[in-house]
């Protein structure tokens, strides 16, 4: 197993090289020369040349790329064009923190609510509720974030006036009862983004758990457990649940990328200063160094999360041998 992990980790740098070169070439292909943006109103060719050299944007594409890699491996991802004077690392750090908090809580909601609901749905299989539940879950997955947010904002922020229209104010808010007793509550800015971010993931996890639980319910060991006279509750908790959770491990990676993709729109539309909104702004203004740094982070995270999921799967299910070509 160690050699398998080592091999997979050895592939990571090459993977990142391929991914960044792809992004790099496309970014450099685009219209809107970043140097003329950076130079502002100065149109002096000498100045432009100097700025170009400063930013490592002179020479051929490959030369530029090699220079960028050289700096990147030392942790220097360049400077933002949009927010001059700040390094990309500085800018990203704070925003990752915001998105990570949001993403982590959404993951908890996705799995915390999706798994029990999936088990419940499996128990309802065969009754008239079953197709209804599946349809509602599929509907949640199909709802596009872009059209969900404006009505939600209108209802909760304008009409009912109980939630803020957007923004970010940390995780915890203090609610004062009569100005004396302080009760910590989740910050109201969190409710809408968490709802929108968790909805599709929650629905897909619930559906996945339902399908696997249905398969597990047909297994002989479940029948044995029931035959022994165990209560339905014990059967569900001790026999069905653990075995239904196996495939969940493999989709954590996808759940995470789903949340990242959702963050792109959710953070932008709700004005949350996280990675998603930062990506949106960077792409919109062609902030190349930021775009490249974001590509590296997202790709590396994707590879690592999937690797961790694979290893976890092998630990939980001894039948799985890492590195063996799976034929299922």
């Amino acid at each position: 197993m160690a050699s398998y992990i080592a091999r997979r980790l050895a592939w990571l740098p090459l993977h990142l090289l391929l991914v960044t070169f792809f992004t790099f070439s496309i970014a450099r292909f685009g219209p809107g020369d970043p140097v003329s943006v950076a130079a502002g109103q100065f149109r002096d060719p000498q100045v432009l040349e100097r700025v170009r050299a400063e930013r490592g944007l002179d020479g051929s594409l490959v030369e530029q790329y090699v220079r960028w890699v050289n700096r990147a491996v030392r942790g220097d991802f360049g400077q933002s064009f949009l927010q001059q004077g700040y390094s990309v690392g500085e800018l990203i750090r704070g925003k990752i923190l915001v998105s990570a908090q949001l993403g982590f809580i959404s993951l908890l909601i996705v799995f915390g609510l999706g798994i029990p609901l999936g088990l419940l749905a499996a128990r309802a299989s065969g009754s008239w509720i079953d197709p209804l539940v599946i349809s509602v879950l599929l509907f949640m997955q199909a709802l596009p974030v872009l059209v969900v947010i404006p009505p939600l904002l209108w209802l909760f922020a304008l009409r009912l006036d109980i939630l803020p229209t957007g923004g970010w104010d940390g995780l915890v808010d203090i609610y004062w009862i009569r100005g004396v007793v302080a009760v910590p509550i989740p910050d109201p800015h969190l409710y809408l983004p968490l709802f929108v971010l968790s909805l599709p993931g929650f629905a897909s996890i619930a559906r996945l758990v339902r399908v696997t639980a249905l398969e597990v319910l047909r297994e002989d060991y479940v029948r044995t457990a029931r035959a022994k006279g165990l209560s339905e509750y014990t059967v569900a908790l001790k026999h069905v649940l653990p075995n239904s959770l196996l495939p969940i491990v493999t989709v954590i990676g996808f759940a995470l990328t789903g949340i990242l993709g959702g963050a792109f729109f959710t953070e932008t539309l709700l004005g949350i200063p996280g990675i998603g909104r930062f990506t949106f702004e960077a792409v919109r203004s062609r902030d190349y160094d930021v775009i490249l740094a974001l590509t590296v982070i997202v790709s590396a995270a994707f590879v690592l999360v999937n690797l961790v999921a694979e290893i976890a799967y092998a630990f939980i299910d001894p039948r799985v041998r890492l590195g063996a070509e799976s034929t299922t």
Partner: protein
Amino acid sequence: MTATAAAGPLDQPVPARGQSQGALLWSRLRRKRAAMASLVVIAAIYMMGIFAPVLAPYSYSQQDLDRQWEGPTADHWLGTDTLGRDMLSRAMYSARTTVIVTLAVVLSGSLILGNALGLLAGYRGGRIDSVVMRAGDVFAGLPDIMLLILINAAFGERVSSLTRWVDTHTFVSGLTATGAASYITVFGALTLFSWVGTARLIRSQVLQLRERDFVLAARAIGATPRRVISRHLLPNVSNLIILSVSGGLGAIAGSEIVLTWFGVGVQPPAASFGAMIFEAGSVRMFQTHPHLLMVPAAFVTALLFSFALLGDGLNDAVRGR
């Protein structure tokens, strides 16, 4: 997965002698009400798009600045937008954009590229397999929305100058005026990302199939790889192909909408649900003129939901449930 997997409940149609896989799949699918209803919705929206030039009461770009933001009236069944354009006609032409983009991308990305690479990688194995799968990993690991936007931004202008060149230098003319350039760019970018899922699915199935006796038998009597792939493997993965195509359609439709919403997809005045959603825009607009958002939202949600329901039904039918 094929005939052997028909061990579902007893009331399921089982393969009759000489019945093709497609016919079996259809007979199973026909028993699923939700899937059939969604098929009707999808067909209706696609027909609406295909026959938009005949059906639409107005042109998608005809403005009437005296009649902006009108709610539904007898003249304009779904109201008018910010420029006084008829919302129903806009929606019909938006469906047309969806039809063009989804069909083109599915055909090239999933059906041709994804299939060919999946079959090749699974059957040949070894180095070809590694290269194809690693390339798939790279694409799967990229932040796709960001890359799609970058690609469209980078190549949009190039493609439109190409269409201008074609207009002036070849016997073709009027290509630029059709707005084909932005469609081509969107198509190219989405194709680049749409093959991975299909290829992986097909490959994993082929890995199993190539160990089966009938493949061995075919090879033993001297069938060429080309014949084995086209006559023995392809028919056995056809159900999976249908499955991945139905799954891909919704994702592709959604991506086009997102790209156009961002401003790098289909260019105005061409209609797209993405453009309609963008124009409906802010909360304030939703407060004063909710129909601007509700019309595209209803069509898009109906379409994506139907694709999801159909995919779910197909999935059950393929697996013999």
